[in-house]
């Protein structure tokens, strides 16, 4: 019988938010087209470490399995990326799996990214249309604007852009590229533009756009290819215009 190929995985585990992380090693038999999610599922089926110690299944967050939900972002061999699109055959072994470092760990590879949602609210990155009576149809959107807005709307809030940003750390409350990109998206939207001023005011507030220092890692790490650097620069242009001319011309 031919020797079976195996896959070596090192996983940084942590049982609870307040507990110390530790490493565990697993050795699995190789299968074609394996990705990191399949790997983690096989560990869940048979949670035994390489030394033969019975352990618990590794907790991780995942949903769509086709890189459109953002849930399975983690550090794979030190790089922030989606586990579902990380193919085992393309990874150097042993494969190192770690949770994102810029978010609180819930358990193992599962992190709490609610901060991003809170920051979307803080930067008013939505279109407020709730009210007591129907407002009717909004203004039409020019096809040219649609084409510019669509790539921005593909954000999956995975958090990779925050993970790779040197300006996002425990000394700074920078909201990160994803949130600023959403500010741009909703400022482009004809109904959203009615609240453009408020969004720009918020984006010039604490943790806002000025915390970007142009390291441009976000655009490299984005799994959706969103022009994040361009978005930050565009919002910067609008913000500085409002900051300088806002009080002059209202």
């Amino acid at each position, binding site marked *: 019988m031919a020797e079976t190929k195996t896959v070596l995985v090192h996983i940084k585990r942590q049982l609870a938010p307040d507990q110390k992380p530790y490493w565990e090693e697993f050795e699995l038999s190789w299968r074609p087209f394996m990705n990191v999610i399949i790997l983690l599922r096989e560990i869940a089926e048979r949670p035994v470490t390489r030394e033969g110690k019975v352990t618990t299944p590794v907790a991780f967050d995942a949903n769509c399995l086709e890189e459109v939900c953002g849930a399975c972002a983690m550090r794979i061999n030190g790089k922030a990326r989606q586990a579902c699109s990380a193919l085992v055959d393309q990874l150097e072994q042993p494969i190192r799996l770690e949770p994102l470092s810029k978010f609180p760990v819930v358990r193992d590879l599962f992190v709490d990214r609610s901060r991003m949602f809170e920051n979307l609210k803080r930067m008013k990155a939505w279109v407020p249309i709730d009210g007591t009576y129907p407002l009717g149809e909004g203004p039409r959107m020019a096809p040219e604007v649609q084409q510019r807005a669509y790539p921005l709307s593909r954000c999956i809030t995975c958090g990779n852009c925050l993970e790779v940003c*040197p*300006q996002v750390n425990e000394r700074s409350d920078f909201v990160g590229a994803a949130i600023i990109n959403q500010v741009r998206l909703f400022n482009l939207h004809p109904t959203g533009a009615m609240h453009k001023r*408020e969004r720009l005011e918020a984006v010039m*507030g604490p943790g806002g756009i000025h*915390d970007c*220092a*142009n390291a441009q890692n976000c655009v490299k790490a984005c799994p959706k290819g969103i022009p994040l*650097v361009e978005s930050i620069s565009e919002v910067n242009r609008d913000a500085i215009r409002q900051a300088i001319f806002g009080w002059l011309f209202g």
Partner: protein
Amino acid sequence: MAASGASTNHREYFWRKLHSFTGIFPIGAFLAEHFWSNSYVLVSVEKYNEVSRGLQTIPWRVPLEALLIWLPILFHGGYGVYLWWKGKSNVLDYPWMANWMYTLQRWTGLVAFVFIGWHVYTERFLTQGRSTYADVERALSDPLYFWLYIVGVVATSFHLGNGIWNFLCKWGIATSARAQRGAAWFGALVGATFTMVGLAIVLGVRFDWKPFEFYTLPRQ
């Protein structure tokens, strides 16, 4: 909800933008002037002494120095140290070009701030504002000072060139990827020019190299 924006705290935004702006004006502009005037060492000792004496005797000298040089540099450097502390470089994990620039910008800023502090103390204050070619020559004859000047000039020039790129991106002047590439080339050109001119000045004094001395010779 319309009024909610009014309560937002914009203090940090203001200081950040002022930090960014002072790097170009007046500090970058002064550096250009400084390298220009000092380039007279490449013409002749007399010419350099004449030009520096001219600058040393301008009216309103001390208030102008304070307002256009000392205060902006103290603010830009002091606030810059805070920004240096606030960022956490990860260039070893993500060794991308712009990430290297981010990291280098912080460290060259720190080096430049220390160098400029020492440079101003020795050449402006110890000489009581009357520095001459002989003073500079004496300083540069010390190998330690010579290398301090080389490091200081390179760090400062890099910081300005990269800072111009940062400025163009962060003020929304160069927004698209293509425009930012262009801005990067422009910043690189400025940085390279300042490095070359700065090094020429240091080497010119150190090795008594006067490539433009023929300007002063009588016409044949």
